[in-house]
């Protein structure tokens, strides 16, 4: 039986891991390569690396980190941040990424998903959606959550999947960093709209939040979090054990 996945997310800036609360007040955590090795040993099923650097120097540092991580950690790696073209896909794939996630790049250029899916396969293209409620509806946000595109999120995600995205990361900006649980309403809406794997992100604060996520939404494939793992508030091994005890299929 296919298992649910637990995915730590590493936001990388200038070669180091940071985690923002509501995307502001960035705080340094640790070496991304050390953290990746630690998570892989602890039972993480996959890792996400987000490059939140803007500069060319930072980008070069990021690919160094990625290459080093990919040569020492043998679980799937998804890379996102600053992906705007097929050339960007190539850049990170050649450094050991398995999947590439796009958000702003796809908003600016919707044909990017199709082009990349045709070249690398649907399984390689992940749509990462930063979503926030605005006047009672879900809006897509771009540029690391700074810009409201005004687009309705669920229909936009569906369109990306129709174009060839093979997986969706749904990041609830309303819940991000708040640690009061995943955004079940938003996640249910996305799961009902698409038939590719959906990864829940934003809001994990406790083991109970993950149990609720997988019990309430059986269609969710994975739970992603950053700070609760980085700061040791949740140990992945304990989390997986607790989920398994609750009848959720996991790789232990």
């Amino acid at each position, binding site marked *: 039986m*296919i298992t649910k996945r637990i995915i730590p997310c590493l936001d990388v800036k200038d070669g180091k891991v940071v985690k923002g609360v509501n995307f502001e007040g960035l705080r340094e955590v640790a070496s991304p390569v050390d953290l990746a090795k630690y998570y892989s040993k602890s039972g993480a099923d996959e890792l996400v690396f987000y490059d939140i650097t803007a500069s060319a120097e930072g980008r070069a540092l990021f690919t160094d980190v990625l290459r080093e991580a990919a040569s020492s950690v043998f*679980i799937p790696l998804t890379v996102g941040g600053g992906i705007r073209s097929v050339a960007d896909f190539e850049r990170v794939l050649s450094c*050991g990424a398995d999947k590439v996630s796009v958000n702003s790049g796809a908003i600016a250029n919707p044909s990017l998903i199709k082009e990349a899916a045709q070249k690398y396969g649907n*399984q390689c293209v992940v749509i990462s959606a930063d979503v926030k409620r605005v006047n009672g509806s879900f809006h897509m946000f771009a540029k690391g959550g700074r810009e409201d595109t005004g687009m309705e999120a669920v229909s936009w995600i569906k369109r990306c999947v129709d174009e060839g995205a093979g997986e969706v990361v749904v990041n609830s900006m309303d819940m991000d960093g708040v640690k009061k649980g995943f955004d079940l309403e938003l996640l249910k809406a996305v799961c009902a709209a698409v*038939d590719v794997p959906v990864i829940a992100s934003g809001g994990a604060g406790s083991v109970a939040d993950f149990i609720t996520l997988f019990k309430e939404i059986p269609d969710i*494939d*994975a739970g992603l979090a950053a700070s609760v793992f980085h700061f040791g508030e949740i140990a992945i091994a304990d989390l997986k054990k607790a989920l398994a005890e609750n009848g959720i299929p996991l790789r232990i």
Partner: protein
Amino acid sequence: MIAIVDYGVGNLFSLESSLKRVGAETVVTSDRAVIERAEKIILPGVGAFADAAKKLKESGLGDVVKAQAALDKPVMGICLGMQILFEKSYEYGENEGLGLLKGNVVPMKGYIDENLKIPHIGWNTLRFVRKNPLFKYLKNGDYVYFVHSYFVSGCQDSLIADTEYGKPLTAAVAKGNVYGCQFHPEKSGDVGLKILQAFCEL
């Protein structure tokens, strides 16, 4: 020396790194002479069958792999590289594979339950069907990482392990010196490394 056949499909960085990790000497190559000199051959691959089969054919590397397999050299296909070892694929039309193993590549759609997602992405268990040296460091039920929408059917004579996704799907095959994994050993953590190590020790 293990030759990883580079025919222009897929990311070989992780595969090369994982083989290095288990102490293997590897070379990523599209050079016929290098492949012929290698002790073992790995045929990787991601993407679409038709495109990969065409590239193997046009480059002549498919024939090189076939000839080397006929000389009893261990050959292992991974993911799409495993599917290409078989006779035929029905992914976007009908396309010929290398025909080293008996069986065909068919869509999961229409075979597995409708409510299951395709592709089959994630960690799933291996269920041993036959004993094989590839599994010498593994135990039945170990988890490996899959990403695929098509699977090999009609390969009873080479099937060594399957996995359960609503229905049984071919996970690993072996016949003589020809091996294949539908999953990605280079992405399957310690379990995957143990499979690669076992292949290196053949």
